């Protein structure tokens, strides 16, 4: 991007090299085996990337949305699954702690999460409360010096590998009475259900967090009781921008792979890049990818400059995953039979990206947010 600082350009290079070396060679294996590239995850810690937005005093890089998006973009170009796990750890867990926890809590939890010694996750969705997240029913009942947690959280990225969970629970009957708890698996605050088998993002573990009369000390409450809805929604903006970075990385991978293939594959005596139908697919996917890149990074920069807004983040999140699914479907089509086989990565790109139209708020929820904003403005 033309407006990247030297520091951002350097970050981009470091991430691209890392992705090429540590993520790309393993991506197809972990997709096939539904396993997690733990080794690479730990190395992200060594590189200092697991706390990209956290304060330097806890080991973080102290950077913002543009930097976090650069990491997602470059990583996802090689392996979207590892990137999703990275996002759940860095944006959903670490960044939330950074923004909402007390100095004491930060001191206690952030260094290990940022070094990669601990893996973090976040729990918002429940089996019956997806788009309607604020309706959640997992309850935390105050019992003197501790809380009793009951319920479960669904679709939790990193659940099986997590040591720390940043979890929202209901502390009162009125709809918005939600509180946040920082839970430790080792202390028995939660257990993890059986792994969830998915269409894509198979190299990123997904599970259920279960709270069965879990006793959680009051020191694990983050912020004030009943005060979490605002923070929850606030962090979603950054989540939506950064998850769109995963789609951008996938789209770029599609363009690169398709261009290579169109130059190599011959039919009717010439490389298929000579056919206008193929040219149309290539030209469109490349234009759309450039458009997405400029849109996404501009919004990320605005976010860092303090011009925040749920509506623009929702627009990013609506457009990038949706366009990338179309691009990835075309990428398979351009490869024909080979594209459908798992020998080429394009079918994985499509399966992985579909998640981005659902996670962090479905396309439909984005539409609702954007429309509500438009209608209330006029």
């Amino acid at each position, binding site marked *: 991007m033309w407006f990247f600082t030297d520091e951002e350009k350097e970050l981009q290079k470091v991430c691209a090299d890392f992705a090429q070396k540590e993520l790309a060679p393993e991506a197809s294996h972990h997709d*096939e085996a539904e396993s997690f590239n733990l080794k690479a995850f730990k190395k992200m810690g060594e590189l200092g990337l697991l706390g990209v937005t956290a304060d330097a005093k806890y080991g973080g890089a102290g950077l913002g949305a543009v930097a976090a998006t650069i990491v997602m973009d470059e990583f996802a170009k090689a392996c979207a699954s590892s990137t999703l796990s990275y996002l759940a750890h860095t944006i959903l867990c670490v960044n939330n702690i950074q923004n909402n926890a007390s100095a004491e809590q930060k001191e206690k939890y952030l260094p290990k999460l940022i070094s990669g010694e601990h893996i973090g996750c976040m729990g918002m*969705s429940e089996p*019956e*409360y*997806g*788009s*309607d997240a604020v*309706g959640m029913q997992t309850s935390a009942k105050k019992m003197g010096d501790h809380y009793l947690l009951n319920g479960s959280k*669904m*679709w939790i990225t990193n659940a099986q590998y997590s040591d720390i969970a940043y979890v929202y629970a209901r502390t009162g009957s009125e709809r918005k009475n939600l509180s946040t708890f920082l839970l430790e698996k080792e202390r028995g605050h939660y257990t993890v259900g059986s792994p*969830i*088998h*998915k*269409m*894509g993002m198979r190299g990123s573990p997904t599970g259920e967090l279960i709270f069965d009369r879990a006793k959680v000390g009051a020191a694990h409450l983050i912020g004030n009781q009943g005060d979490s809805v605002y923070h929850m929604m606030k962090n979603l903006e950054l989540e939506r921008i950064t998850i769109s970075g995963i789609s951008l990385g996938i789209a770029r991978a599609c363009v690169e792979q398709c261009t290579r293939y169109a130059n190599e594959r*011959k*039919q*009717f*005596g010439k490389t298929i890049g000579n*056919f206008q*139908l*193929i040219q149309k697919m290539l030209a469109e996917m490349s234009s759309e990818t450039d458009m997405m890149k400029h849109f996404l990074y501009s919004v990320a920069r605005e976010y860092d400059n303090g011009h925040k807004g749920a509506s623009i983040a929702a627009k990013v999140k609506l457009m990038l995953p949706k366009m990338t*699914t179309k691009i990835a*479907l075309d990428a*398979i*089509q351009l490869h*024909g*039979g080979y*594209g*459908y*086989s*798992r*020998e080429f990565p394009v*079918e994985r790109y*499509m*399966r992985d990206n*579909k*998640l981005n*139209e*659902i*996670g962090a708020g*479905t*396309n*439909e929820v984005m*539409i*609702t947010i954007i429309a509500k904003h438009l209608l209330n403005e006029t």
Partner: protein
Amino acid sequence: MLTDIQSELTKQITRFRQEKIEPTLAEDDQNEKFRMEIYRELGNLGTTGIPIKEEYGGAGLFYADLCVALTELAKSSVSYAVTISVSSMVQGIIQEFGNPQQCQKFLPELTSGQEIGAFALTESGSGSDAASLKMTAKKVKGGYNLNGSKMFITSAGIAKTYVVMARTGEAGAKGISAFIVPAGAAGFRIGKKEKKMGWKVSPTCELVFENCFVPAENLLREEGMGFKIAVSALDKGRITIGAIAVGVGQRALDESVKYSLERSQFGQSIFDFQGLQFMMADMATEIAASNLLVERAAYNYDHGIKNQMLASMAKLKATDTAMKVSTDAVQIFGGVGYTCEYPVERLMRDAKVLQIVEGTNQIQKVIIARQLKKQY
């Protein structure tokens, strides 16, 4: 409107797929397992040789009837539907281009569903440009020696009878001939099995021929007819792939409507949100349009009305619709739609291949455009 025969066929297949296919489907998809016993039972139901003459054990019905059966079957399993579609295509080739001896010898076990037929045209270097295939059939005493390999062959390994296109003469379409090669012929083996995104119950493999001797009596019609045979078979194959696509779309819609009526968010069923209603209204409309096109293309074929353009349009429209509709279905289901617990993610993975097989949708556009040029 379905005929009486079609209604009966649909009813039987509905029951069969729900009772016999659905229970192990998710597991079989995961393990890439094809069950021959299921195929044979489909044979007992009379679905594995629908458009073939009764004297060869077929049902003596129409392609339109085959299409109705495939649409219904594909609601549960694209894989079994495709196995029937391809085997029926092979039977169609043998019936149309084979001599009475060949028909007698090869058809009955295929029509009954005891065995499966496979069609081998594509090679690693020749996909859409099929006429440039490289595999050779060299004339020797009493027959031909086949050398080369075939790629992406549906039902490879489970099929007993293969119709194989190989070059007996000059470069280009006119040098190609079609042979019937039985499984187990010396010098013929099944190569690497493809790992695929979807369509996993149906095996797709490479075929390898190393000095495989095929007796002259297994040549279909005469030398040089191979490409013509392949093209005429694909014209029919396109219609049946379209029918399968309609089934995929319909199932995706059925699941979406049911789920959205049951699932509540924000205190109401998600069906009541207009965003979803419009999505499903579009889905239903596109599926209905696809179904009508497929029906018409099959009708034309059954009544000897030559219309290659309509067959291509039916394949193009129905498979694009299946892709779009199944993608939307995953979206309507949200998180659970992305998991293997519900069928919609499988429908989406299975749908994609329909845009590629029996001529990619790009090739359909080439065909349609070619016809357009002739018309004006």
